[in-house]
């Protein structure tokens, strides 16, 4: 079929497909190949966002086709590492959805205060923005020293970045408004020191954080938590994988423990939905029933 397109559209579209059916087969083979050779399982990631990321990788790696990307990844472990990064990294903002953090302060913190020690799990922490947001909130609520935050992600490179506590300075300035709208009690810049391009969170904010590798697709529950946060991670999983992960969280949340999802996510699809009640429905904060 013929279309008239602006030349720049043709130029800039990620890998204009020749035959979508071929692409579908190639994508399937890519995921199978990565799983069979490297044991890394992307087969139940949500297909639309996955395909988009794959096509971008094809372009970035100069591979021309998805088959080319598979070949590169199988024969070159460094390419494989880049593929994993490309398929899984989510960059988010500090205090994304300030209403969530307000609701967390209002509804969850008073209950956490009653515990002598508090365990929280940020599942799929990526580069760590949410972890540091939580650490700051808990410090302001004078709970931080009683807390242990487990921050996990499948990717060692991204975990190292999170552990470093260093972020681009330009991003931090954007996050200041979010911080204030979340009920922040101080100046956001009090929490980091900056040079020309980077901001480093003060090391005390890392004292109670354990960064560890964990893959929600394949790994088991490793502790019981008072709070599990997994916000805008499961949107990248298909429904069957989401069910697996909901089950994993259910094994990891004690009675009266909290599960926090992203603003446009839902617990309804979970096989355990009936065992939770909404504490702050529009902020997606749920509590496991006693």
């Amino acid at each position, binding site marked *: 079929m013929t*279309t*008239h397109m602006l030349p720049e559209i043709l130029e800039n579209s990620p890998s204009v497909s020749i035959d979508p059916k071929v692409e579908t087969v190639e994508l399937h083979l890519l995921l199978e190949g990565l799983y069979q050779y490297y044991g890394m399982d992307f087969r139940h990631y949500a297909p*639309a966002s996955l395909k988009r990321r794959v096509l971008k990788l094809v372009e970035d790696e100069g591979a021309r086709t998805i088959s080319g990307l598979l070949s590169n990844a199988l024969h070159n472990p460094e390419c494989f590492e880049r593929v994993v990064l490309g398929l899984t990294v989510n960059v988010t903002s500090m205090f994304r959805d300030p209403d969530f953090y307000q609701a967390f302060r209002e509804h969850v913190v008073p209950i956490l205060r009653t515990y002598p020690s508090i365990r929280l799990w940020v599942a799929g922490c990526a580069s760590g923005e949410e972890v540091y947001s939580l650490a700051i909130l808990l410090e302001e609520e004078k709970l931080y020293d009683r807390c242990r935050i487990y921050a996990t992600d499948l990717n060692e490179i991204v975990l190292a970045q999170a552990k470093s506590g260093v972020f681009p300075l330009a991003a931090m300035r954007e996050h200041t408004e979010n911080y204030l709208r979340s009920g922040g009690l101080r100046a956001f810049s009090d929490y980091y020191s900056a040079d020309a391009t980077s901001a480093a969170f003060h090391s005390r904010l890392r004292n109670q954080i354990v960064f560890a590798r964990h893959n929600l697709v394949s790994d088991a529950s490793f502790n019981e938590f008072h709070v599990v946060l997994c916000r805008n991670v499961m949107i990248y999983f298909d429904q069957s994988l989401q069910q697996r992960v909901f089950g994993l969280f259910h094994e990891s949340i004690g009675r009266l423990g909290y599960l926090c999802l992203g603003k446009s996510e839902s617990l309804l*699809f979970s096989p355990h939905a009936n065992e939770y009640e909404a504490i702050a429905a529009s902020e997606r904060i749920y509590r496991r029933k006693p």
Partner: protein
Amino acid sequence: MNRRPKKARNSVSIPASASSRALDSILAEERTWPSSECPGAIVVAGGSRGGVAALQQLLSSLPPDFPAPFAVVLHRDRTSDHVLLRVIGRQSSLPVEEVTDKLPLQSGRVFVAPADYHLLIEEGHFALSVDPPVRWSRPSIDLLFESAADAYGPNVIGIVLSGANDDGARGAARISQCGGRIAIQDPSTAECPIMPRAALAATQSSHVHPLDQLGVWLAQELIRVNPTPQP
């Protein structure tokens, strides 16, 4: 395939012309999961500046038994709330709701992309993403359109409304490439003609209509694409 819930109840949504107080209580409730269906055709639309008013007018002209899901991306501030849904729903003959992840596609309803997420179409349901903004936009009209073309090919109807940038032009080209149809709000009637003009340049679509005729065209086009909706 989507799982069917144990009890199939209507999803919570904003009914056409609901009162403010009723809306507040509806929005606070947790909705129940609707049953899945296989729509024969799907309508995807996008707009930015002037797009809300254009969408209002378009939705007011659609029949209540509109035989396809109607998904829309409006560029919106990332902090925007349900006010937008109320405004869109005001004169809509179809119920309007904001998408949550994996929500099934259902005919006869309007689905609005939530703020600060990309809205994607997969087979039978919506999917969300927080990938970086595309051409400074999240939600991106291009991503909605491209994913619809991928999932539904010739059964996609894309509509480009008033807007201040060229988001949607690439997506419209992809829809056309995959056998779907594109209709464009007549730029001379649009509050901001940039978006319609960009889509027109990208697709050379012959379906350029002022808003009052767009609804008529759409209803006719759906009958042509999908004469008998799938159960």
